[in-house]
């Protein structure tokens, strides 16, 4: 791009451009004729014959130069320029017209000339950026690569529409239809070429590079389609978004990721209802992955491709570290036993939640210490679960030593995760290296995990348990406690054997059972019972049993504590019993002492309870973690966040505290013996708490990036990374207000009736906005758009259609196109007419740029520009925020999909980028945010959300209208819009502030200056009435938040100043007390996100 721009400004064109519209040279008509004469083929031939040029090449060179000069002179003298008002919308675009077009060749040339573009008579890969044609012969379509050389082939309407929109529209929707079918084949050859293009990206003209990308994307989208038929258009769109901030390789990568992730999901999630949702969210997140493998060659891509397929097919050719495998994290969790155990719990909870909570364990309250004596607990444990499940259908292995291990490579450096009893007889243990195990037992058979089978067996296992007893506490997928105290009529030993038999019959795996008076005793009994037996420790035998029990076997006594105990000469529980509780507590700490004291007496106060809600959700990888550079880390963190986000979503939880754990190689640690293991490590851990709970991948990414940065580690030293989310809240729709429309709809009829002048659609729309405000994640939006259709229909059935004159045009125009067409249907097609009419009127009435439905195409071009800037100016805008695409599942029309490329709200727009934009463009861009999107610009402000939630939808809208300014950008321009609004607010303090701004800060628009004067000038405030106060607080907070967000990256000094001034103001005014309260946590969270610390308050 740079190049063509260069040629553009070469010669005298650069200086001429500015003046061209004024010069109306009468002679230019003639020049034009001459130019075309020269351009026509016969004349060029004849001139060649008689020319002094040595060869055709040099002739063409001269000719092209001449044509170019002619074009430039013409453009500068502007034969077509009617008035000086045209924008140079095609700046940087250079077209080549192929074949017959409407409008004609010549007209297109005129357009390009007038609107700052270039027109090439001869195709050249170097100068042309777009090929314009209406129709292509089959041969060209078939051999598109040779024809287009990777350039976009676009219909001429693109030019025309761009001109009528007065801005450059995205060309993608105007792609030649013929080509769409052949797209898949393009991916292969676009990838290699376009990785060169990033260097060419320049802020204003980011089109050509994108060209290549999106065609690649297109291709990949279709590829994905093959495997994921249902979600084709989703992919399409996601990939479309992926374009802007990723390089060509990324897109290749992205596709792999997509493929992979959908498969992963398909495998992991048995629940088909969930699957769709998760797959799509997965897709979404994966498109945002600028892959770390930017520098990989095409061959590599090819390999990856093959590899991903191979992995999918279940082959064991896997890459073993984060270094080589971009999908490492996914594969890791796919093959991790611990992961299986960890996620199993959620599965269990979902599956058995109804049965356990439905019964409500009536007496669980009484089941405390006193009744514990009489209680009977059965502990059931499947024998060597991970092995026996795998070999349950392989009779030939039943009495052979078998161990489960993720790999059976000849080096034998993998760890055995479970061994069956014949193997244990040889001394093979879990955690042993395969190599050592084979030394002990040469005939040892190594089998891989079979996670589906594990799930199946675990489900069967629990089905059986729940059938026999309603008090089941699941410990793990293969281990559970049953409280059978109530079942007096059944002999526990008989029950246990029945259960064991059933388990053996159903699953083919043997189970062991221990029966005791407490959970502790039951568990200890199981140990004796194993394998495939059962053991009952009755109350009178407890002491006898414990007397000789080594302390190390007690649950909760690990190697460290055991050593400590043995040092003190406590080897058995019997010895331990001789010591008083107090001295135990003195020696080992209160809790441990207490535990030792009661365990050594066989006491266990715990009672069998249902699965508890997990307190933390997270994922940790500490095998195969090797990073080369920061990019690898970023990529890895992204994947990890994706995983964690999925887990959160799986549990329907959102969390506020994020802890990043790092395993760092100890300074003198050698490369571990375990292949790719973590070895000897220091464990580091840091956490951040954010004000609003989330499960959004991007937020997680941002936080984890910050956390990782705060360690200041050498990435090569990192051996393990874990991300944990705590302070969990339920993401349940009922707790979150209206996250899904369906929940709202049940109450919809009522509200519709009370607000007669309103209508369903408008309400819907506000609800939409509400939902979006509640969480920033794209996922919920996805749910919305999925549910949008049914909701409208049911809305229609539940209330009569409001008359058309009552419809709010503003709302209608901002509706997603699918929704609108749906609505239009219910109004018998009159709706579009109405909108059309209204729009016509408005256009006449106002000159302001109005983005409505026909502006949809326009918005695409803006968002593209933003991204163009982002890629080039990556340094200044640390983290380009990626707009959340929502999904237009139903539509095939590209134009419609384009709407959602816009960031859904201003808050998602990177302000530093926005500020870089020319004034004009910025204004347009701001105008391009539909009003209902503006409403939720500060979606992460908890205060605001609460406030909104409380008020009626109706009120919200009113408030929005009143405040209006509150969410659009308050800090653009000078004086910024907030000043005016404050002035008109009617609140004396706000008026005063606006006044001060005019006086002191106009030359240097710093908030601290304003606040400083506010502090000194206003002695004491008399606060307005409470009603007014709320609004003022909200306004001020909004203002400050935007300001802080603007400044946090570059100017913490200013933030610090404002923060302290606020504190001072809080001493004098109720309003500022509230503002300070709200903002201090906000500021601290933001600061810790950016700087890894908190501002000093004192």
């Amino acid at each position, binding site marked *: 791009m740079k190049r063509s721009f260069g040629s553009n400004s070469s010669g005298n064109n650069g200086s001429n451009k500015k003046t061209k519209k004024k010069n109306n040279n009468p002679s230019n008509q003639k020049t034009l004729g001459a130019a075309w004469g020269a351009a026509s083929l016969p004349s060029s031939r004849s001139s060649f014959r008689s020319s002094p040029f040595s060869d055709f090449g040099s002739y063409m060179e001269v000719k092209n130069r001449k044509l170019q000069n002619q074009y430039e002179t013409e453009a500068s003298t502007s034969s077509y320029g009617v008035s000086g008002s045209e924008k140079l919308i095609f700046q940087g675009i250079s077209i080549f017209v192929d074949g017959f077009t409407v409008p004609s060749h010549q007209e297109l040339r005129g357009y390009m000339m007038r609107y700052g573009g270039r027109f090439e008579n001869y195709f050249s890969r170097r100068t042309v950026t777009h090929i314009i044609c209406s129709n292509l012969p089959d041969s060209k379509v078939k051999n598109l690569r040779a024809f287009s050389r990777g350039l976009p082939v676009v219909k001429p309407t693109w030019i025309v529409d761009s001109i009528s929109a007065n801005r450059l529209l995205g060309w993608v929707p105007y792609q030649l239809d013929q080509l769409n079918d052949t797209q898949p084949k393009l991916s292969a050859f676009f990838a290699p070429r376009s990785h060169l293009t990033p260097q060419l990206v320049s802020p204003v003209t980011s089109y050509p590079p994108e060209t290549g990308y999106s065609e690649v994307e297109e291709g990949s989208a279709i590829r994905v389609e093959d495997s994921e038929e249902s979600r084709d258009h989703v992919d399409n769109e996601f990939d479309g978004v992926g374009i802007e901030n990723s390089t060509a390789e990324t897109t290749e990568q992205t596709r792999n990721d997509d493929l992979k992730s959908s498969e992963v999901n398909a495998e992991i999630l048995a629940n088909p209802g969930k699957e769709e949702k998760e797959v799509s969210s997965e897709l979404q997140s994966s498109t945002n992955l600028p892959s770390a493998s930017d520098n990989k060659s095409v061959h590599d891509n090819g390999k990856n491709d093959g590899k991903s397929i191979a992995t999918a097919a279940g082959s064991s050719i896997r890459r073993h570290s984060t270094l080589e495998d971009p999908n490492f994290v996914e594969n890791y969790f796919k093959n991790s036993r611990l992961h299986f155990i960890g996620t199993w719990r959620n599965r269990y909870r979902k599956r058995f939640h109804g049965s356990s909570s439905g019964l409500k364990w009536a007496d669980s309250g009484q089941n405390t210490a006193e009744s514990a004596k009489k209680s009977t607990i059965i502990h059931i444990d499947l024998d060597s679960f991970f092995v026996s499940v795998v070999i349950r259908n392989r009779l030939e292995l039943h009495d052979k030593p078998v161990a489960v291990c993720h790999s059976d490579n000849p080096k034998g450096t993998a760890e055995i995760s479970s061994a069956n009893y014949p193997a244990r007889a040889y001394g093979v243990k879990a955690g042993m290296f395969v190599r050592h195990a084979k030394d002990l037992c040469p005939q040892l058979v190594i089998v891989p995990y079979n996670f589906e089978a594990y799930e199946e067996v675990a489900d069967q296992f629990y089905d059986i348990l729940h059938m026999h007893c309603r008090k089941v506490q699941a410990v793990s997928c293969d281990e559970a406690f049953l409280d059978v105290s109530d079942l007096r009529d059944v002999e526990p030993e008989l029950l246990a054997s029945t259960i064991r038999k059933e388990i053996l019959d159903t699953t083919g795996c043997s189970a062991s059972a221990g029966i005791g008076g407490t959970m502790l005793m039951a568990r200890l009994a199981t140990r004796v019972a194993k394998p495939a037996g059962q053991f009952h420790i009755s109350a009178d035998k407890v002491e006898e049993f414990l007397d000789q029990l080594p302390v190390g076997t007690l649950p909760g006594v690990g190697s460290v504590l055991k050593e400590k105990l043995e040092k003190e000469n406590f080897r058995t529980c019997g010895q331990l019993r001789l010591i008083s509780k107090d001295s135990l507590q003195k020696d080992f700490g209160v809790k441990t002492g207490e535990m030792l004291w009661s365990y050594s007496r066989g006491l266990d106060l715990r009672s069998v309870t249902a699965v508890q809600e997990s307190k933390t959700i997270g994922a940790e990888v500490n095998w195969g973690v090797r990073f080369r550079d*920061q990019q690898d880390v970023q990529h890895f963190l992204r994947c990890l966040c994706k995983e964690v986000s999925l887990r959160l979503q799986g549990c329907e939880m959102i969390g506020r505290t994020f802890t990043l754990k790092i395993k760092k190689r100890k300074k003198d640690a050698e490369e571990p013996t375990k292949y790719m293991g973590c070895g000897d490590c220091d464990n580091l851990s840091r956490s951040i708490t954010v004000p609003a709970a989330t499960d959004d991948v991007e937020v997680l990414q941002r936080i984890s990036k910050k956390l990782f940065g705060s360690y*200041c580690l050498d*990435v*090569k030293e990192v051996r393990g990374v874990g991300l944990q989310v705590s302070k969990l809240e339920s993401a349940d729709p009922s707790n979150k207000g209206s996250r899904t429309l369906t929940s709202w709809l049940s109450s919809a009829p009522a509200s519709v009736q009370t607000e007669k002048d309103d209508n369903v659609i408008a309400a819907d729309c506000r609800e939409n906005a509400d939902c979006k405000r509640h969480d920033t994640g794209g996922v919920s939006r996805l749910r919305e758009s999925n549910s949008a259709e049914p909701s409208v229909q049911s809305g229609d059935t539940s209330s009569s259609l409001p008359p058309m004159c009552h419809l709010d045009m503003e709302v209608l125009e901002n509706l997603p196109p699918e929704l609108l067409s749906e609505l239009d249907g219910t109004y018998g097609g009159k709706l579009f007419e109405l909108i059309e009419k209204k729009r016509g009127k408005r256009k006449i009435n106002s000159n302001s740029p109005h983005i409505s439905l026909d502006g949809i195409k326009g918005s695409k071009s803006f968002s593209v520009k933003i991204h163009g800037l982002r890629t080039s100016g990556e340094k200044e805008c640390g983290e380009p925020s990626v707009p959340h695409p929502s999904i237009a599942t139903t539509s095939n029309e590209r134009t419609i999909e384009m709407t959602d490329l816009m960031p859904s709200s201003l808050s998602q727009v990177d302000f530093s980028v926005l500020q870089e934009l020319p004034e004009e463009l910025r204004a347009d861009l701001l105008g391009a945010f539909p009003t209902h999107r503006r409403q939720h610009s500060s979606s992460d402000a908890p205060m605001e959300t609460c406030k909104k939630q409380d008020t009626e939808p109706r009120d919200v809208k009113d408030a929005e209208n009143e405040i209006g300014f509150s969410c659009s950008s308050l800090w653009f321009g000078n004086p910024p819009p907030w000043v005016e609004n404050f002035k008109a607010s009617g609140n004396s303090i706000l008026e005063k502030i606006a006044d001060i701004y005019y006086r002191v800060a106009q030359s240097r628009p710093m908030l601290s200056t304003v606040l400083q004067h506010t502090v000194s000038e206003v002695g004491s405030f008399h606060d307005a009435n409470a009603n007014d106060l709320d609004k003022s607080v909200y306004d001020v907070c909004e203002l400050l938040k935007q300001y802080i967000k603007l400044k946090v990256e*570059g100017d913490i*000094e200013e933030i610090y100043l404002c923060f302290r001034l606020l504190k001072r103001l809080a001493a004098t005014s109720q309003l500022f007390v509230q503002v300070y309260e709200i903002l201090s946590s906000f500021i601290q969270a933001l600061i810790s996100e950016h700087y890894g610390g*908190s501002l000093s308050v004192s």
Partner: protein
Amino acid sequence: MNSKDDNHSGEVARTLVEFLEVAITMIVFLKGFYPSAAFERRRYMNLVVQRASHPELRDYIQSAATGLLPFIQKGLVERVAVIFFSEDNVPVERFIFKLTINPSCAASVEEGQLEFALRSFLIKLSVSKSLVKPLPHNCRWEVTAYLRSLPEVGSSKEGELWIPTDTKQWQKPPVITPVKSLDSEPLCLQLYLEHPSFSEP
């Protein structure tokens, strides 16, 4: 990028390095790490600043600053920290220069403007005595640079002077006290203090 741009961004980096040298000296002086007799008054950017009169100290600071030049030019340096340690190697106070250079805008800035902006840092530093904590007994200090990514081995001779640090980290996020910020093109520089949070063990 043409050579003219190169020159300009190099210019910015050089100015910055010079500034860092002065600023680091100022910080050490401010902390009273050495007796004030170990410094002499000099004029820099038309300001009175201190300079170490002991050649070894001066050399250390100077080499630390100039050693950063190639990395700053490459845009690798994210933060430069002047860290003061207690006896057992735990940092007690860190002066952080967080910097971002945008080479593409370098051409547009005038030397004078940049100097003017950097001057304000030195002025602010000279009056920031109240922000700093008293030094513990038997402490030491060092200059640490945090790079965005590790440079290739042997990329430059100067680079070899830098060794990976084994500084202990704080377990909790620190408390930040901003001193001065400069947010402009081509240089975005922030100076702030980090102290261990109160709950730090």
